[in-house]
């Protein structure tokens, strides 16, 4: 039987680097796992951790919204307004600071009239006859990453919201 010969091997191995790289890999996997867990919980938008609600000073006007949103990703605000003396119309004003940075998709129910001035848009709704409360949904997509702020006003009641929009 002829002897087995092992040739001389030339290869640019670097085991020290390799061991250090494996540590980096493990750290990277941990970071990825944490990000995924945070995302499942809604910390990155779209989940239980991210939904919040804010009330006006008297408590008659409440907005439910996401604390964390994502750029160009659809989401909605749910506005709940108590109507004191059963008015014929309800006017909601939305600040330009909000509208200028989002793409408004739809507002439910459909407003009867829409008007605007330099700093806000006014949406007039007609509640159902005898209704003590009205529930309005605003569907939108943020246009840019960053802090999105907006002020929503019905009569004397005002609610300000702010959302962190992720890229």
């Amino acid at each position, binding site marked *: 039987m*002829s002897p*087995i*010969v*092992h*040739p*001389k*091997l*030339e*290869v*640019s*191995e*670097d*085991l020290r*680097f*390799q061991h250090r*790289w*494996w540590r*980096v*890999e493990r750290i*990277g*996997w941990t970071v*990825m796992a944490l990000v995924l867990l945070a995302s499942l919980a809604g910390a990155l938008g779209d989940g239980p951790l991210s939904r919040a609600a804010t009330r006006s000073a008297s408590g008659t006007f409440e907005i439910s919204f996401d604390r964390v949103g994502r750029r*160009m990703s659809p989401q909605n605000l749910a506005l709940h307004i108590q109507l004191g003396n059963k008015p014929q119309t309800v006017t909601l004003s939305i600040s330009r600071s909000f509208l200028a940075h989002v793409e408004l998709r739809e507002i439910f129910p459909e407003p009867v009239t829409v008007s605007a001035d330099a700093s806000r848009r006014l949406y007039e709704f007609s509640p159902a006859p005898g209704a003590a409360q009205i529930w309005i949904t605003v569907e939108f997509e943020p246009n*840019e990453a960053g802090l999105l702020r907006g002020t929503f006003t019905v009569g004397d009641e005002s609610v300000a919201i702010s959302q962190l929009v992720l*890229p």
Partner: protein
Amino acid sequence: MSSVLNALALYVFLLFVFRIAGRRTMSDMTAFDFILLLIVSEATQSALHGRDNSFTNSAILVMTLVSVDIGLSYLKLSSKPVEKVLDGVPMVIVRNGKPLHHLMKKSRIDVDDILASAREHRGLANLESIAYAILETNGTITVIPAEEQKVDQSGRPT
């Protein structure tokens, strides 16, 4: 401009994720090939989720990414540490016929993977016929048979 920044950010992010995923995930394709394939096809299709679907935007995106790819390849040539971080290093997993089990385990390889490569590329039947097996930077396993008198090609050129 934000779509260019998006493209760059996505490139760096994908590079990070696929390097962290390790070599066996990237077997038979380098991370760079894979990324370029993914991103270039995205860029030409939906301009990376921007609302700008113009040809101009796509062209700028493609050129940005190709330029980054070219730039990085020059950077790799000029700096060995950068090359090691971006590409990784080859590693001997069978030396003088003996498998190095602790290194294999960390690389998520077992003896069957080595034998499969030996059969596929060299037609070798067993471990005794193998002098060296090297895990290359792209995740493939190259096998140097025993009894070869001349030194074969090995790994990436230094």
